[in-house]
Structures are given as C-alpha cells and as structure tokens.
C-alpha cells in the first residue's frame, strides 16, 4: 500500500539532499533528479491502482480532517498525478541537455516544480492547495528566468506580476470562505457551502476561479504565457505546458465540482473557455516563432479543457480530463522536439527549420505529437475533443460547438503549415542526428500517445469515475 504523502515527501527529501550531493558531484545531482522522478512516477502508478478500488485519504499528523490536513486522492486525481509524474520523468531525461550553470539549483527547482504540481493535485485541503500553488509558481518564476537573457527576464517578470496577483486572489477567496464556514477542508466546505451568504459565495468562487485561472492559462490572465514559455530553457517550456498548467486546471475542477458543487452548465466558465480558445488559436496562427506558436496553441488547448469543465455534463468533463492527459503528453513532446529544432536550425523562426525533422528519430515522434494535438483519430488527442463536442451536442449547445470546431480548424491549419515546413525536402546536408537525451523522452512520450490513442480502454475505465467527481466525491 502506497501513502500519497510519499509522492510529496520523497521529492522534498531528494531536493533538500541535492545541495549536499552537489558539493561532490554535479552530475550525480542530475541523475538523482531522474531517479527521483522515476520513483515518483512508479509510486503514482501504484497509487492509481489503489485509488481505483476506493478513494485514498491520507491523514497528516494524525489529526482528523478539518483539524489537520488530509490528502484526498480519487481515481481522477491519481491519473492526473500519474501523468504529471510520467511527463516529468521524460522531461528530466531531456534536462541532461541543459548546460548552463548553476545546474544543481536548476535541478532542485525542477524537482520542486514537479512536487508542487503533484501536491496541488493530491491535496484535499484548500489552504494546502494554496501552499502548493505558491511552491509551483515560485519554482516556475526561478526557472522561467534561468537563461538570464533579456527574453527570460521579460517572461519571468510578467509571470511574477500576474502570478502574484493570482495568488492574492486565491488567498482572498480562501479568507472569504474561512470567515463564513470556519473550515478549510474541501469536503467540509462542500457539505456546508449552502449556508454561505450568496454574495460572499459568488465573490469567493470568482476569486478562486481567477486565481487558479492564472496557472490554467485562462484568457485575460495569460499574457505571461508566450513570453515565459519563449524565454525559459527548452525542458522548462515543456514542463510548464504539462505540469503547472494541468495542476492549475485540476484545481479549477476541484473548485467548481468538489467545493462549490456546481453540476449544470456554467456559462461564466464556458465563455471564459471559449474566449481562451479563440485568443490562443487565432494568435497562434499568426506566430512565426516556433515556441511562441506552441505557447499560444497551449493556451487554446487549455481553453478547450476549461470549456469542457464548464459544460459540466459527464461526457464533457470526461473529455476535458482526456484532453488534459493528451495535452500534457503531446505538448511536452512538441516542446522537446521544438528545443531540438531550434538547436538544429540555430533560430527560433519556423521558416528557418526547413527539413530539420527529416531524421526519423525526431520526425516520427514529432508527427505523432502534432497529429495528437490536432485531434486526429488514432491518437490520444482525438478522444478529448470528441467527448467535449459530444457533451456539448447532447445538451444542444450548437453555437458553442460551431465556434469550437472553427477554432479546431484554425489549429489544424497552423500545425499543418508547421509540419509541411519541417518535413520539406532540400537542406539534407544540415539535418543532424539527435542524441539520446533528446530522442529517448520523445520516443517514450510518443509511444504512450499511440498506446492510449489506439487502446483507450484503461483511461476510459478510470474516467468512468467522472460521475462521482462531478457529484462532489474525491
């Protein structure tokens, strides 16, 4: 039996240990981080199997829930934690390509970023969620500026300002809830949410929604996204798209379903989601820079997830979760590939990358990732979009579906343009072979995308529990 707290305690232990190891061997710290994330992914996998039987509650400090903190892991939380740690493991291999000093500090920040995102997913306590949000965002600020160039500082500075506004909103929301209910446990809040004053309740919901919306890249709060993704080291761009963003959107789901128990159509959330989708996809179409294009595409995808959560039917939320999984895998893959392409072309512009992906070790995973993000049938990304669409369709929101499809077509257009350029003939002399630290994570991620796309049954079995999640369960 695996205790969920180990997923948080062990990375912390390794992170605190790494400065001591770093005195003797910097290389040792890099491999320690890979080991730690691999261990975490394994533990998360075992935890998922356990959580499928029944939700796991881990009481911390021996005090019963509203008194102390409790970790609450249902099947959905477990699978998101598993995917986060799996992707973190793949990216930690790619981390070997980072040369810039101080590498020990970089590794610690990365491991704690993983820990914070995992904690946000596992926790069952509102204030604890805020603490992990802080851990995640402060680790991200440090990593976003790690390159120490103008782009990095600009992105990190924007992220710091918007991120701290978001954290303040979360804290205000928590203060409002605590002042009325005198509790911080999510299930306790859910049980007594009806006794709150309606105005305070709406204000608390709005504050929490906007606050977590910063991490979830929601429309008016996502101006940091392109700059931070663009300025960060390549592995960190991949990590941003798949770790804090997924944890943030899961926190949103917790706020909407577990705590505030909204079960039907939430127009506010859907409108925000749609605006996010449109903003992301249309701006992405105009981008000439590869990493910025991927960042805007990431915004669009996050918008789809938020929309799925807002539609609120079982099918749509199932789609949103499938999309979270597919996007975490696909976008991490694309950012790693982008890192290689930028290295090979010595430029971030898409037009300079003619034929750079013609080496099969990089080309095939890149193609799989792009097709999956576009939502092509045999790959993982298809089911997410399909379920969100069907969820909206069954409720008769035809206008929303039409807009959603239009945005998807824009997405297909710019990915197709990108693929056409990187696979173009000519320029064969310049094509270089990626090394193991690049293609191993790419292949790992590509295999998972194909497997869960062709054989989605295990994921669908887990996602069957969406019904209980919407009803306010773990």
């Amino acid at each position: 039996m695996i205790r969920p707290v180990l997923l948080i305690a062990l990375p912390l232990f390794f992170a605190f240990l790494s400065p001591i190891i770093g005195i003797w061997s910097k290389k040792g710290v890099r491999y320690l981080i890979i080991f730690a994330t691999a261990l975490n992914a394994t533990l998360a996998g075992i935890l998922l199997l356990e959580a499928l039987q029944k939700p796991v509650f881990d009481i911390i400090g021996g005090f019963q829930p509203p008194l102390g903190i409790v970790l609450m892991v249902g099947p959905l939380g477990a699978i998101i934690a598993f995917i986060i740690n799996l992707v973190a493991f793949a990216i930690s291999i790619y981390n070997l390509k980072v040369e810039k000093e101080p590498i020990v500090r970089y590794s610690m920040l990365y491991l704690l970023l993983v820990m914070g995102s995992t904690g946000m997913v596992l926790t069952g306590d509102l204030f604890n969620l805020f603490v992990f949000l802080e851990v995640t965002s402060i680790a991200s600020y440090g990593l976003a500026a790690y390159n120490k160039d103008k782009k990095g500082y600009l992105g990190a500075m924007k992220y710091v300002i918007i991120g701290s506004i978001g954290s303040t909103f979360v804290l205000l929301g928590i203060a409002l809830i605590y002042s009325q209910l005198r509790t911080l446990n999510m299930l306790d809040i859910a049980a007594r949410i009806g006794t709150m004053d309606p105005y305070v309740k709406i204000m608390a919901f709005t504050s929490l929604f906007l606050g977590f919306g910063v991490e979830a890249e929601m429309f008016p709060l996502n101006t940091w996204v392109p700059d931070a993704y663009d300025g960060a080291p390549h592995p960190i761009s991949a990590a941003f798209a798949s770790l804090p963003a997924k944890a943030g959107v899961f926190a949103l789901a917790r706020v909407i379903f577990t705590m505030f128990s909204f079960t039907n159509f939430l127009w506010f959330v859907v409108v925000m989601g749609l605006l996010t989708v449109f903003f992301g996809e249309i701006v992405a179409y105009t981008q000439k820079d590869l990493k910025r294009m991927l960042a805007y595409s990431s915004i669009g995808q996050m918008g789809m997830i938020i929309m799925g959560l807002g539609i609120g039917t079982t099918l749509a939320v199932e789609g949103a979760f499938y999309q979270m999984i597919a996007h975490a895998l696909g976008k991490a893959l694309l950012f790693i590939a982008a890192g290689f392409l930028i290295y090979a072309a010595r430029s971030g512009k898409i037009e300079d990358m003619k034929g750079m992906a013609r080496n099969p070790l990089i080309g095939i995973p890149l193609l799989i990732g792009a097709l999956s993000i576009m939502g092509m049938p045999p790959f993982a990304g298809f089911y997410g979009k399909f379920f969100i669409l069907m969820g909206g369709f069954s409720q008769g929101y035809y206008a929303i579906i039409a807009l959603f499809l239009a945005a998807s077509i824009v997405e297909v257009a710019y990915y197709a343009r990108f693929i056409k350029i990187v696979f173009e003939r000519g320029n064969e002399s310049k094509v270089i072979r990626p090394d193991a630290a690049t293609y191993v994570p790419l292949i790992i991620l590509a295999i998972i995308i194909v497997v869960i796309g062709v054989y989605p049954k295990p994921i669908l079995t887990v996602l069957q529990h969406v019904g209980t999640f919407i009803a306010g369960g773990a």
Partner: protein
Amino acid sequence: MKKALAIVLAILIFIVFALAFVKIPFGEKMSTYPHYYNPITNQTSNMSLPQHYLTYGKNDTGATNMVTAIVVDYRGFDTLGEVTVLFLASTGVGSLMYVENKVKKKVRRSNAVVETGSKLLFGFIILFGAYIFIHGHLTPGGGFPGGAVIASAFLLLYLAYPKFHAKHEKLSVSESIAGLTFVIVGLIGLIIAGYFLYNFLPFGLPTYLFSAGVIPLIYVAIGVKVGSELTAIVDSMMGVRE
C-alpha cells in the same frame, strides 16, 4: 488616461471586495461559529474549529502557544510547504544572481563606530533569534521570526564590514540539513504511527522547555533553515566585493 483607468479599476475591485468583507463577522463570540463536519467519519462536531483548537490544543499537541500548535502540529504540512517556498526563493535568487566570471566591486570601509557596535551586538542578536525559535512552543515567536532575526544579525555584519562574505557552501549545507531534519522527522512519524509528521515524542509537562514532542525540534530546524536562507539571499544580492 492609463492612470485614471487603473485608479477606477482599483476602486471598483476595492468596492466589490469591501461589500463581501463587510459581511464577515468581526470580533464575534466563538460559540456562534458554525460547527465543523468530519468528512471521513461523516460526523458533525458539537463545536467550531477555532473552539476545538483552543479547548483541546494543549492536550493534542503539548504546546502552550496555540499559534505554534496550529502552525507546526495541526497544519505542519503547510509549514513544510512554506519552508519549501522560502527554500525555492533563496535557490531562485541564487541561480539568478549566479555569474561565471565574478566582477569584484570596490568598496570602502565603514566607520569605526558601526564596526565596533555591530561586533558587540552580533552575538546578542543571534542569541535573541535562537531564543525566539527555541521557545517557539511556549512564547510568541517561532522558526520564521527567529530565523529572520538571525539573518538580520548577518545583515548588520554585511553593512559594517563590506568585505564580509558568508561561505555559500556552508549556508547551503546548513539549510539542506535543516530541511532534511524536517522531512525525516515527518517520515519517522509515518513509520512509527502511520501518519506523516506525527508528533511521536512524549509531550512532557506543558510550559517546560522540553515539552510538546517534536515541535521544538521542528522549530529549531526551521529557524536554522530560515536564517541561512535569508542570509544566502542577502549574500547573493550583495554580490562579490573587494
């Protein structure tokens, strides 16, 4: 124009939140608070959460300072997170201020009064900081303020002796060891009692220095950690001097 818009927005946000905060009871009797509900055992308690902390806190944790009881024991996991936040901040500052070829800045000596004064005061400030965190479970204060006081003693040294330079390796080793202590105490609790961060030591007599189980141990670790982290931040910000 831009400024006017910003002011209008700020006032709007203020009004919207003020309307919500007006509804918060301030200084109300604790007996009127809503009672808490345990979602695992499915029972509603006969008192509110703050009431429980004040009534049973001493028995549950052995600490006489209720703030410490809540910060280190009831919600110790949050404190572990907050310590990590500070660790991240110091690591982040360290990684941003890291330069490969250090340019040494020329500095002047400060005057004799400051030098002698800080020499005299340094020991006392350190002692006071250590007092704050060692007695955290008995009197107001604890690891965070104690660590901050210790860091301010080092700040005094930096101001009085411009060439003073704390060894970064030593600072990072002391903060790692303090952090490891916190996590290991938590893991020992997990092994002994099945709960992470369980207070596994005997509580002893309340108001005595050696009481409240693991709380003093954790607070000493936090104090050392916060002190060395804040010193490291100040040191990174000062840069290299000649």
